[in-house]
C-alpha cells in the first residue's frame, strides 16, 4: 500500500509500485486532467508537481511519491478559483485543442513558483520540455510573461462582484 497526498488529501493505493504516477492518478483516483502524450517523459502532457517540483508523471513510479505531496491541474488553484496562469490562458485564448494545456500550465506554475520574475529566455528554457502540436507557443509564452512579476491572483470576492455587476 502506497500512501501520499493528492491535491491536499491523504490517499492510498495498492497499484503495483512500478505503475507510473500518471496511471495511478488517472485510473485509480479518476483525475483525468493530467494527460498521456508519450509515456517517455518527452512531451510534458502529464506534468504534475511533487513537493512543488514539476515532474513527468508518465515515467515516475507511484511508489517514489510515497509520503510526498502530489498536485495535479485539478488542485493547482483553490476550489472555485483560478490560478493567475489559468486566468491568463483564458484571457489570451491560449488553448487550441487543449490536450497539452494542463501540462503546460503545471510546468509554468512550477517555474513561476521558483522564479516569479522569469524573463523570456527563462520561460523558453523551462517550457522547452512541453510539446504543443497545435503550436500555441507564442500565446503560452505571452500568458506566462503576463503573469511573471505580478503579485498574486485576484481574490474570489472580486470575481463575484464582477459577475454581479
Amino acid at each position, binding site marked *: 500500500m502506497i500512501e501520499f497526498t493528492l491535491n491536499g488529501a491523504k490517499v492510498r493505493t495498492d497499484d503495483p509500485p512500478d505503475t507510473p504516477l500518471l496511471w495511478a492518478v488517472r485510473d485509480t483516483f*479518476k483525475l483525468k486532467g493530467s494527460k498521456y502524450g508519450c509515456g517517455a517523459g518527452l512531451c510534458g502532457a502529464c506534468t504534475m508537481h511533487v513537493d512543488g517540483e514539476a515532474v513527468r508523471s508518465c515515467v515516475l513510479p507511484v511508489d517514489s511519491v510515497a509520503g510526498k505531496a502530489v498536485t495535479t491541474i485539478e488542485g493547482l488553484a483553490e476550489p472555485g478559483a483560478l490560478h493567475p496562469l489559468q486566468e491568463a490562458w483564458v484571457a489570451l485564448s491560449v488553448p487550441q485543442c487543449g490536450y497539452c494545456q494542463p501540462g503546460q500550465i503545471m510546468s509554468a506554475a512550477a517555474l513561476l513558483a521558483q522564479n516569479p520574475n522569469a524573463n523570456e529566455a527563462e520561460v523558453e528554457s523551462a517550457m522547452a520540455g512541453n510539446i504543443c502540436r497545435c503550436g500555441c507557443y507564442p500565446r503560452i509564452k505571452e500568458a506566462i510573461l503576463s503573469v511573471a512579476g505580478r503579485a498574486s491572483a485576484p481574490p474570489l470576492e472580486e470575481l463575484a462582484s464582477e459577475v454581479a455587476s
Partner: protein
Amino acid sequence: MNGLANVSRRRFLKASGVAGGGLVVGFTLTGCSSSAPPVVRREGDFVPNAFLQITPENRVRFYCPRDEMGQGVSTGLTTLVAEELDVAPWDVEILWAGVHSDYANPDFGVQGTGGSTSIKAHYRQLRQVGANVRAALLEAAAGQLGRPVAQLSTDSGHVVADGEKLPYGQFVATAAALEAPADAPLKRPSDFKFIGKDFARIDALDKSTGAAEFGIDIDVPGLHHGVVRRCPVAGGTLKSYRDEAARAIRGVTDVVEIGSGVAVVADRYWAARQAAQALEVEWELPSLAGLSTERLRADYRAGLDSDGDVDGERGDLAAGFGQASQVVENEYWAPYLAHAPMEPMNAVVRIEDGEADVWTGCQGIGAAQGLVARYSGLDKSKVRAHNTYLGGGFGRRATLTHVIEATQLAVATQKPIKVLWSREDDIQSGLYRPASLIRIKAGVDDAGRLTAWQAKRVGGNIMPDTLRNMMPALLPGAVGEGAIDWMVGLAHGAFDGWVVDHSSIEGLYEDYDTANREVRHVTVNHGLPLTFWRSVGHSYTAFAKETMMDELAAKAGLDAVEFRLRNTQDKPRLQNVIRVAGERLRQWPRHAGRHLGFAAHSSFKTDVAEIAEVSIEDGAIRVHQVLCVVDCGVAVNPDIVRAQMEGSVMYGLTAALHGELDLENGAIKQSNFHDYPILRMNEAPGVEVVIIDSAEDPTGVGEPGLPPIAPAVANAVFAATGQRLRSLPLRLA
C-alpha cells in the same frame, strides 16, 4: 483585455454555481428507426430544429454539428447561430451533436469535419437557423403580449417590449406551437454584434482547468482497457503468439485475436500495456516488408521517367517553352509524415442488452456509429455515438480503426472496453502523409511572365485508402469485407492509369497565370496506408512550386514579390495578399545575420502570403519571425483566425525543420518524440497575422496557413547561404 477576462470569469462562476456543468449529451432511441435528431428533450423545451433548444428557464443549447479539434469550430459555429438568435455566444451551452442527417457537413453531405470547410459550409445555414428561431420567438411574444412584432425587438436572449426585457424562455411554449419561418431575414453585416469581433474562445476555460473531456478521459462502470499488438509492417497478419507471461500479470482478464493483431484486456491500462509487451508474437509479413527509404526513393525516381496520367493541361507546352528566355528544371522531395496529435487514438465501446455506446473524439461521429454497428452486428439505430473534444485532429481522426478494435474487444469479452494507442503505435501503426517526388520544368520570358509550366508528381494516392476506411462505416453490414476489398482494389486501379486523385497534385499549378501547362501524375504505391494530413497535397506541392518561383524570379532578374505580382493577373485575391505582404517585406527592419524568404499559396479557397525571417546558427536553421497575410473572406472570429495561422505555421515548421519518417524492412523506424521531434517553444518564432478586411463569405482557415511556411523558410535559407534546398526536411549541406 479586461473585457475578455471578465467573460471568462463569468463563465467560470456560472459553471461552478447553480447552472452546473454536467449536462450529458443524450440520445433518444424512439424505436426501430427514428428520424428525430438526438437531442435531450424535456417537457416544455422548445426544440425547433436539430441545432437549438431553449428551455423555459431561458437556457439556450446549441448542438454543435462539427468536431472541435482545436480549430475553434465550437466557438465559431456558436457565434453564427447566436448572432442571428441574438444571444451572446458565451451564454450558449454547447453540446456535441449525435448522429443525424441534419448534422451533415453541407460541403460533404455526411457528418465529417475537415478540409477547412466548417465555417464556410455552415456560414449561411446556421445563421438562418438562428434567424428563424428568433423570428418564431418574436411572433410568439407578439401573440402573448398582444403587440405587433414591429413594436418588439430582441437583446441578449430577451424580447424587448417598451424597454422591458422578457426572457426568451417565457415564450417557448407559444413558439413551439407555431410554425417557425423558414427564411427569416438575416442581419446586415453592419449590425453584427459578434461576427467579426474578438472575444475569448468559449472552450478556453475548460481547457485551462483540466475539465475539458477528451475521448481518453471517458470512464464507465466496469471499464476494461485493451492494448493491441500490431504487426510492425502495415498489412502483416498474425501467425502465432504465446501469452503465458502476459496472462501472469495481475489484472489481465483476456487475450484476444482481433483483425489488427492480438490484444490484451486488463482492469487497468498499465497492466494491459505491460502484458501486451510481454506477448511473444510472430507475424506473417507482407510484401511491404522488403521496403527501405532508399528503395522507395529509387522507385519514385524511376517513376519520374514514366508518362503517368495527365491533369491540368492547357495551351501548347512546346510553344510555351519556345517563348521562354529562361528554363529551369528541378526535383523536390517530401517524406512520409505522421500527424502525431497530442492525444493518441482511443475509443470506448460498451455493448449491453442489444444496444451499444461509443465515445471517441473524431472527425466524423457518423462513421464511429457505422463501425460499431458493423463490427457488433447491431443495427445503427441501436448504437449511440458520443463525440468529445479531440486532442488534435489534423486529418488523423477521420480514420477510426481504434473504434473497430474497441468494438471487437467489447464483443469478444462482453466488457466495456477502452482502447488506447501508445505514442509508438501512433507513429508506427498509423496512416501517413504520402511521400512525394515532384519534378517541375518552367519557362519565363524577358518580361518576367511564365510561359510554360510542366509538373509531374510521383507517389501514392490518398483516395483509395480513404475509401478503405470510410466504406465499412457507410455501407450496410451485408456488404462484406471481401466486397469492400474488391471495391478498394478497383479504386487503386482507377487512380493509377485512369483518373488523377486531385489531392495528390492539388496546389501544383493553379496559382499562377500560365498559358501553357501540363501536370502529370505517376502512381507508385508500396502499401503504406495514406491519409489526409493538414493541408493534404498542398503540404508538399507549395514547397516545390514556391521554391521554384524563387529561382525563376532570380532568373528573370525580378524580386520575389514583383515576379509573383506579374504572374497573378488572373488571381486578384492572391495577388492582393502578395502585394500587402510585399509592402511589409520592403519595410522589414533588417538585422545583421538575418535573412528573409517569401512565399504565397492558395488553398481551401483562402489566399496566404508569408515572410520568414531566418538566421543560421551553428549550422542550424533558426526561424525568428513570421508574417502571415491571409484573405479568408469574413473572419467570423478574427482571433481564432490568427490562432489558426499561428498554429499552421508551427505545424508546418515542424515538417520543414524536423519531420521525416524512414522505412526499414517495411517498418517505420521512428517511434516517439525523441526521433520524430516536434517544434518546441525555444524554436518557435513570433508570428504576426494580418487579416485582409473582406465582406465575402468565409473560406478555409484551419489549413491554408501551412503550405507557404516551408518554402518561405527555404527561400530565406537561400538568401542566407546560397544553398537551394529542395528536400524536406530542410538540411544544410
